[in-house]
């Protein structure tokens, strides 16, 4: 199973940071996610972890998210 998307369904780009307010990926990272290699996805998740720390947010849970 490849690395799961960090999307948490709060899909709005912050005009201040340029990051998604839910998952803290930038628009390029969200755009390329589904064709990104696992290595690239891990890089993106590391960047996300840094950005969340910078913003004082708790780390994203490594869950599959809600399954509807």
């Amino acid at each position, binding site marked *: *199973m*490849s690395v*799961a*998307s960090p*999307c*948490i*369904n*709060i*899909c*709005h*780009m912050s005009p201040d940071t340029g990051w*998604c307010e839910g998952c803290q990926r930038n*628009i*390029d990272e*969200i*755009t390329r*996610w*589904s*064709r*990104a*290699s*696992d290595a690239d996805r891990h890089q993106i998740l590391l960047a996300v972890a840094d950005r969340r720390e910078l913003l004082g947010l708790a780390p994203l849970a490594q*869950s599959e*998210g*809600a*399954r*509807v």
Partner: protein
Amino acid sequence: MSAALHFPASLQVFERGWLSANNILLTDGDEATLIDSGYFSHAGQTVELVRVGLDGRKLRRLINTHSHSDHIGGNAALQRSFGCSITIPAGMADAVANWDEDALLLRTAAQKCERFAATSLLQGGDRFVAGELEWQAIAVPGHDMDALAYYNVERRILISGDALWRDGFGILFAEVLGSGDGLGEARRTLEAIGRLAVDAVIPGHGAPFSDFDEALERAFARLRAFEDDGARMARNAIRACVTFALLDARRMSLDELPQYLAETPLYREANARFLGLGVDALADWLISDLERAGVAHREGTELVAS
């Protein structure tokens, strides 16, 4: 599946979450087609994703797989931003033209969507070229009675909407609401797409996947479970729809939950037809079920998305 599936460069998938359906951008020279537009409240991000994916090309056309709010919610915003035409399954033409909020399940499931007007229609058997590939529209009733899937025979790619996910399929609304043979149609749909040669599925939600046969097996197993136990199907539908509403609103008042369940047609019908619970008992079951699933938790007087 150890890495991303490989698609031609003319086909980009923007994997979204559960509130917004995935968007598929298909490019032909300096023009492009998008399939499905996500949920209304995410339309700003959808427009930005499409703009990046277009890379200077012109978005000519937007095509929907079906008429639910998580697939058509960005239609109006995309048309405003890019001037694209909007093509919808023929079966939903009247519902869209008259903006029938019951037929579009907006009122039925208490969801929001910005109104748009369709410019053309597709039906099962129609063909079109997008992303340098020829797609055949296939009728896939069940989750939505008018839904279409799109199939490319050369690359064996199926754009399945909510008719088939890696693990299941979308709520069988007609069956839950008592307005049609959702179970029977879903079975015929799974049998029909099961006859196709498919190497890659791009579902409406979740990552694209290649284990088509296993996904079909899981879908049939779920269908059998629903055929055997209508209450299970109804609970599943209620849980999924409340989760969707919670992802949208982020929080709901616990005091108002019983009334919300009593007033929203989907919950009312699912309960009346299959469960027969008092509305407070229904609310209690739902809260503990969502907490157990890790979807939501209680915070003071509110139920909050986890």
